[in-house]
């Protein structure tokens, strides 16, 4: 079981949270005008990184807010959690 540090509530058991997959995916500004390739990339393609991964979690049985976590996907260790918007979407992981 992971212990997850919600930026609003502090450390809680994993079972209070829902996973939201890769973080910082930017929705295309103008979906009507982009190609099928770019739409597919946005909708389906994932970094699925082996290593440091930026992902989103929802504290569903707590404050019910979304936040970002930087997690190592082999050891599962969570290095940081951030409020949404606190870090820049262009960051590396």
């Amino acid at each position, binding site marked *: 079981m992971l212990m997850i540090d919600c930026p609003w509530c502090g450390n809680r058991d994993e079972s209070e949270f829902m996973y939201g997959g890769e973080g910082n995916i930017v929705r295309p500004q103008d979906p009507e005008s982009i190609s099928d390739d770019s739409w597919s990339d946005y909708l*389906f393609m994932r970094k699925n990184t*082996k290593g440091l991964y930026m992902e989103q979690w929802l504290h569903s049985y707590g404050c019910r807010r979304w936040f970002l976590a930087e997690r190592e996907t*082999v050891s599962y260790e969570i290095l940081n959690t951030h409020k949404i918007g606190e870090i820049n979407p262009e960051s590396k992981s």
Partner: protein
Amino acid sequence: MKRYSLFSLVRNGINHHSNWDRVWRNPNPRPEYDVVIIGGGGHGLATAYYLAKEHKITKIAVLEKGYIGGGNTGRNTEIVRSNYLWDEAAQLYEFSLKLWQNLSSELNFNLMYSKKGVLNLGHSLQDMRDISRRVNANRLNGIDSELLSTEEVKGLVPIINTSPDTRYPILGASLQKRGGTARHDGVAWGFGRAADAFGVDIIQGCEVVGIRQEDGSAVGVDTTKGYIKAKKIGVAVAGHSTVLANMAGFRLPIETHPLQAWVTDPIKPVLDVVVMSNSVHAYVSQTDRGELLAGAGIDAYVGYGQRGSFSVLEHAASSIIELFPIFSRIRVVRQWGGIVDTTPDACPIIGKTPLKGLFLNCGWGTGGYKATPGSGWVFAYTIANDTPHNLNEPFSLERFITGKLIDEHGAAGVAH
């Protein structure tokens, strides 16, 4: 390859089992191959076997970073069935189920394929509607499938709790009689041994760390045992598919998740069918040794660590105990995890890639073991002919651009 037989068993018994042949050679990689298969799981080994057998290509290496069958192939709950909802999936899995029928004698290796039958339980009116829809779809596709009432389930599995007062009452089930289990590491060894007999080099402890390209084509792989040239490359690395795609320079609609299973102490025979329940995310069978073999759902997060969280195990275990109260005090002796490659539509990707000469077989997620022979067969066809077979054409990577998904998720009792 010396054939296994009653005679060879007796002869080797007299010699105190000291003269058995190596099951496969342990060669050093050659500098160049016609086909290099990355990943020595069941799918990679079956691909090599069918390339040699059906397409007469024998200058093949299977490169495995650990030992063969050490990935999901040797970690699954062994369930074999073909009762998928959509035509494309049903045909692919049924093709594979047909190959299972004679596989032990074809490979001269006892895979212990046991047609004990697979039950998929329904716990709500909606479950039962979905199940009858799937049973009808299966029958239209020529796949054996039956709808059972609560009493019929009880008749087949007397120890199951069919009381209406449970959290998830059993309202009925589908039954596929040709479904069952087969010994998973035997599948890796059987295909490995038979491929080796055709001259395929199985190279263990050899991790691929890079894919070299020239003029937009794949030309070879960098490995921990040096550079190996290849005319064609097939990738069958399950949970590591994205890692390999990154080396080749394209993206995949894959997420890698931990998936866990466990076995208990052996007990007397009490369960002679496979019981699965999608809504409570649990599945259990009893092995020939008497252990209960059971599995859970995936951990929600991305994970490459071959282990998951206890809460997921606990959830599946508590569901199984509710279905089978007599299991409540049996002890778990071993628990493990694999890492499965899930796709958005819960169907595999088998075909060509944006990189010429590089072929991909992945996305089998929680349920690719049953497809091992069929997957190897169609992948071998695709690599040999540089074009997909009718059976795997719908399972292209392009479907995520065209939108022609094959939505088995939820629709078909899909897990495992």
